[in-house]
């Protein structure tokens, strides 16, 4: 690897000494000797296993729950229902005033996705917990469901969550997060070509090698130690404190090593119920997702639908860009209103376009609630944007790399969401890419700069 020190040479000091050197990872000796400690690398005498009973339906009303047979099953200590939960509302981002309290920890009168947690069986072996779970009798009234963005937004669609009243999140700005910059209609009218395309993505599962889970040990003084693989330790601590109405100093979260997260372990779905179980039984509790739960139940990256409409000139300038971005939050909000918001700030991409109109929507469907995954809220947007850029270049007969040079943002340009561009380096990256990939571009593009007059 070589350091291209000529770039931005007049913008920074040349005092970087560590780059380009191999450096042993501090954790890898533990990994290769099997000494690294993951949350599940412990057991406690008398530990109970939590088996979650989950909805088999996409959308249903719960008519009744009969635990009588299950509770009698040998080895069962307790079965938790929503009635056991001090504050049965789950909102991952409540602490930063983002996201509605539209989800329960354990379902009360309705289930809104296949896999939603209803009751938690606690038994002294996994086998006993599984057997008892099979004896839990829940009477469901199946309701119509919507399983994709378009069905959810169609007129007359069944409402996923009465908390919202419609199948999209209502921001303070209305049904979408908005960016309004310049006059797109004027831009489209002046453009030589218009291109409108729709892009789709499916939910993507992070699929870490280690499944989500925690093991909780009561300390005997109303304090609980929770060994967890959460990626979001303070989310976990604070949300658990609110859900269980316990002061933070009663909760000792131990984490650190995560067997792969990729955004899939930020949802705080196991710790509150496991700690409550430890509190109510007085026993250590293990709640670890099976591989099936990890793949099907844990939150994936949201499915998205993105419509891009561009007005482009023959000479390569994009003069107007309009974006409709739809995020499939699944049945509940979790991080998705924030993800859709991130998308709004991310469009129209690293390009300076004089007229921009963006609406991003957080849509509810009866699917597994989605959440973060690498590049949360922006990765799929980039897929759509860059494919669109290639299509636009083809449309006007221009080289796709040169097309991006023409539109690249530079320091001082005003972005559509009214932040001035600073520290841009797209042009320099593309120049290097042109060289390294042996994809030649016209000389004038090799002379461009993100921050110098050229």
């Amino acid at each position, binding site marked *: 690897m070589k350091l291209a020190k000529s770039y931005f040479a007049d913008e920074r000091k040349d005092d970087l000494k560590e780059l380009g050197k191999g450096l042993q990872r501090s954790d*890898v000796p533990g*990994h*290769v*000797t099997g*000494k*690294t400690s993951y949350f599940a690398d412990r*057991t406690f005498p008398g530990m109970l296993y939590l088996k979650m009973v989950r909805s088999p339906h996409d959308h249903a009303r719960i008519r009744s729950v009969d635990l009588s047979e299950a509770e009698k099953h040998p080895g069962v200590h307790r079965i938790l229902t929503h009635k056991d939960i001090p504050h049965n509302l789950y909102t991952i981002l409540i602490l930063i005033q983002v996201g509605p309290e539209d989800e329960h920890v354990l379902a009360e009168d309705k289930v809104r996705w296949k896999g939603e947690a209803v009751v938690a069986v606690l038994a002294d072996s996994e086998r006993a917990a599984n057997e008892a779970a099979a004896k839990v009798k829940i009477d469901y009234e199946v309701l119509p469901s919507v399983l994709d963005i378009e069905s959810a937004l169609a007129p007359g669609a069944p409402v996923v969550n009465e908390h919202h009243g419609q199948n999209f999140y209502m921001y303070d700005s209305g049904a979408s997060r908005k960016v309004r910059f310049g006059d797109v209609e004027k831009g489209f009218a002046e453009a030589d070509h218009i291109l409108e395309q729709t892009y789709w993505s499916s939910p993507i599962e992070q*699929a870490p090698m280690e499944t989500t889970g925690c093991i909780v040990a009561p300390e005997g003084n109303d304090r609980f130690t929770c060994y967890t693989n959460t990626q979001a330790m303070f989310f976990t601590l604070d949300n658990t404190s609110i859900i269980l109405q316990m002061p933070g100093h009663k909760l000792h979260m131990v984490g650190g090593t*995560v067997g792969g997260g990729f955004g899939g372990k930020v949802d705080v779905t196991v710790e509150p119920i496991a700690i409550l179980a430890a509190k109510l039984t007085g026993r250590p509790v293990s709640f670890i997702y099976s*591989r099936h739960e990890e793949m099907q139940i844990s939150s994936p990256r949201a499915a998205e639908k993105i419509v891009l409409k561009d007005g482009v000139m023959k000479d390569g300038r994009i003069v107007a860009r309009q974006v409709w971005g739809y995020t499939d939050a699944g049945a509940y909000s979790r991080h998705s209103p924030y993800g859709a918001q991130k998308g709004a700030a991310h469009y129209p991409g690293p390009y300076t376009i004089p007229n921009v109109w963006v609406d991003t929507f957080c849509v509810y469907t009866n699917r597994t609630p989605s959440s973060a995954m690498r590049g949360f809220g922006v990765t799929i947007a980039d897929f759509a944007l860059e494919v669109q850029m290639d299509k636009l270049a083809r449309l006007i007969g221009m080289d796709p790399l040169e097309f991006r040079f023409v539109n690249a943002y530079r320091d001082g340009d005003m972005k559509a969401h009214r932040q001035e561009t600073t520290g841009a380096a797209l042009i320099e990256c593309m120049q290097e890419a042109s060289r390294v990939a042996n994809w030649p571009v016209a000389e004038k593009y090799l002379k461009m700069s993100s921050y110098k007059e050229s």
Partner: protein
Amino acid sequence: MAKVPVQFTLNGEEKAEFVDSGATLIKVLRDKLGDTSPKGGCNQGTCGSCSVIIDGELKLSCLTLAETCNGVEILTNGGLAKDGVLHPLQRSFIDEFAAQCGFCTSGMIMAAKALLDRNPNPSREDVVDALSGNICRCTGYEPIIRAVLTAARSNSQNAA
């Protein structure tokens, strides 16, 4: 629950335990014997994180019943380093950045060891085949393949 006696050698040490009937080997290794190096990534036999070597053969401890292990010799990654001296595979995994989250690592090293014990001079294709039962979500596999080939080369250099 009925308890069944099981006796086997683990990383050269004699072990004897009373285990729950029907218990899988991974549970006995991790919860009873304190060897947490085999990892329960799937409990289905599809990910390879639980790989161990039993009587010289690579096996999946999540699908092996502990009671079928009487009298066998079991090797795990946790017992591979002797007196603090790393096995060449462990050394090469460090040097080649072949681990990130580390969860698949013990299984990978076992699969690699099973290969090198049989075939000390594997081709790249041999390595890929030997690791085909082990999933990694972090490294993209290339550093792991490189690490196994590096360990094989260093073994043959030392033997020469």
